[in-house]
């Protein structure tokens, strides 16, 4: 009974969420605000991707911004090649290359004339990087905090390489002055509702893909690995493969989020591969509930939303970071499973009432029952 109800609750929750984010453009005619909301939804994708690796598999990836950044650069490269050249060299060489005395388009830029290639690369490239890193890390049975340290170091390395290779990447400035993405005859202007809808649907697709993974047996084994990695081996599963899988799916989704972000921001820069973004994703998941995909996504939207709201309100100009900090501490202390656990608890209470009306012995024991609150 409980299971059925909870999964029904899940469906209701998802439907409400989908409806909420899809009707938003109908009530907003401020393109600036719409663009900002679209950005928050992208952060939702990132948080859901981290929930998959951290919340479900126990891999705290502090280098998720690598995938995000690589995805954004893939998109930015194709958009850059589609800008109307103003200060370009021969054959539409990007402006920054002209300034850096690059004579011809580097070979790895060539395929980015094709938008389709860029879209595939934006997912595939981060996945391949994650596959390589994951292969070494998880085959060697590196666990826990050491995985976090290695991924964080990886982030710093990739960031330095991009900053250093100014001639090909635009260095500190990144890739600016990008064209709009044109796909299937639609012009995805960063401030249009078309872009917003593309992002909203991408977030929903991400959540669906994530749910399919975590509800499969593979997802169950991922959770078992989170609980006790060694034990899983003695049941015949190759733990490293499952970890690499979770790591790669997470990287692919983050790369996709990065592509959308480059579109919405109309630039890509090394700040997308910053430690700050990586750590923010962890905070979003922790606040929303890292063991829930939709919880993590909501956490990201909520935190970045409040952040945006507070930092732009004159009264909180100097104190907003303090308020955010207090919020994080409060959630981590009192709701270790994140804000979503309030919803889950409420739902289980409701279900519990229905059940106890039927049978006495099946006491409600919701998944999030180990809470610090009543």
């Amino acid at each position, binding site marked *: 009974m409980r299971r059925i109800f909870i999964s029904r609750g899940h469906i209701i929750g998802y439907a409400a969420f989908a409806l909420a984010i899809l009707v938003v453009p109908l009530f907003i005619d401020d393109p600036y605000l719409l663009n900002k909301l679209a950005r928050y939804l992208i952060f939702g994708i990132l948080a859901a991707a981290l929930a998959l690796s951290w919340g479900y598999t126990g891999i705290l990836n502090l280098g998720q911004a690598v995938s995000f950044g690589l995805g954004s650069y893939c998109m930015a490269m194709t958009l850059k090649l589609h800008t109307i050249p103003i200060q370009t060299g021969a054959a539409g060489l990007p402006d920054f290359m002209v300034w850096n005395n690059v004579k011809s388009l580097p070979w790895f830029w060539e395929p980015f004339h094709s938008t389709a290639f860029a879209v595939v690369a934006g997912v595939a490239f981060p996945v391949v990087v994650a596959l390589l890193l994951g292969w070494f890390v998880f085959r060697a049975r590196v666990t826990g905090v050491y995985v976090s340290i290695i991924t964080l170091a990886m982030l710093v390395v990739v960031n330095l390489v991009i900053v250093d290779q100014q001639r090909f990447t635009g260095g500190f400035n990144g890739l600016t002055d990008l064209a709009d993405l044109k796909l299937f005859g639609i012009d995805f202007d960063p401030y249009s509702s078309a872009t917003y809808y593309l992002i909203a649907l991408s977030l929903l697709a991400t959540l669906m893909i994530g749910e399919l993974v975590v509800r*499969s047996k593979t997802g169950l084994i991922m*959770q*078992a690995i989170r*609980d006790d990695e*060694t034990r899983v*081996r*003695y049941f015949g599963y190759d733990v490293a493969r499952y970890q690499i899988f979770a790591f790669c799916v997470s990287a692919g989704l983050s790369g996709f989020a990065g592509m959308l972000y480059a579109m919405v921001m109309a630039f890509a820069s090394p700040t997308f591969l910053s430690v700050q973004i990586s750590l923010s994703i962890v905070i979003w998941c922790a606040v929303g509930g890292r063991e829930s995909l939709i919880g993590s996504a909501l956490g990201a939207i909520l935190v970045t939303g409040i952040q945006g709201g507070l930092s732009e309100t004159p009264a909180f100009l100097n104190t907003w970071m303090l308020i955010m900090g207090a919020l994080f501490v409060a959630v981590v202390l009192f709701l270790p499973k994140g804000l979503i656990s309030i919803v889950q608890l409420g739902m289980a209470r409701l279900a519990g009432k229905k059940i106890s009306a039927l049978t006495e012995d099946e006491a409600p*024991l919701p998944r999030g029952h180990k809470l610090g609150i009543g």
Partner: protein
Amino acid sequence: MSLLELKGVEVQFSGFRALRGFDLSVAAGELRCLIGPNGAGKTTALDVICGKAQVNGGDIIFAGQNISHFEEHRIARLGIGRKFQVPSVFRELTVKENLHVAFCRRAGVFANLGISAAKANADELEKLAELVGLKESFRREAGILSHGQTQWLEIAMLVAQDAQLLLLDEPTAGMTAAETRKTAELCKQLKGRHTMLVVEHDMGFIKEIGDVISVMHQGRLLAQGTVAEIESDPEVRKAYLGSGGIRGA
């Protein structure tokens, strides 16, 4: 023909020789008890079979295959299940989910992504839970089970895994007398269908379930035989000197 054979197995932990040329042969369908004073290398013997400890010499043959240098998951796939001394189950998963993880028919990441894999035999798993008296807790988290229940859950997980050879490390540790009896019942039920190698201290329990007992001492096989034979063996008495014979172990 023996299902499991250890020939002169050596295991060293940074210089300490935990197993020194250990020989053991277990026939298919047998329930073998492994006893010995503390530090004899009983747990190490199980560890080395399931791949937890590295072999430094000698061979381990299982069903005609030399598994001495296989990775843990490959050994498990061949049909060897392990119950640990400290019961280890997945505490954040429900009893049902625990059994489902153990129910490993396809080990691949992508093979397990499909819907059919998610809908493993729920009835079968529930029957297993019933076998070990955990039917009421089927949908509860394993973290809330008592110590004895956790031990039984782990045994049920080995059955779900359908391992040909079960390695049980002190299955009655920390159990009350009633729980120990129930565990003995369980072991008898599994006997025949599974080959079992049980490390145990409780002589009452061993008399209840065991046919042949192997005694270990200082990393070697000291003696082997029925309970009566072992109890009268002068070598065994010597090994247990000071602890009042095997009864006091």
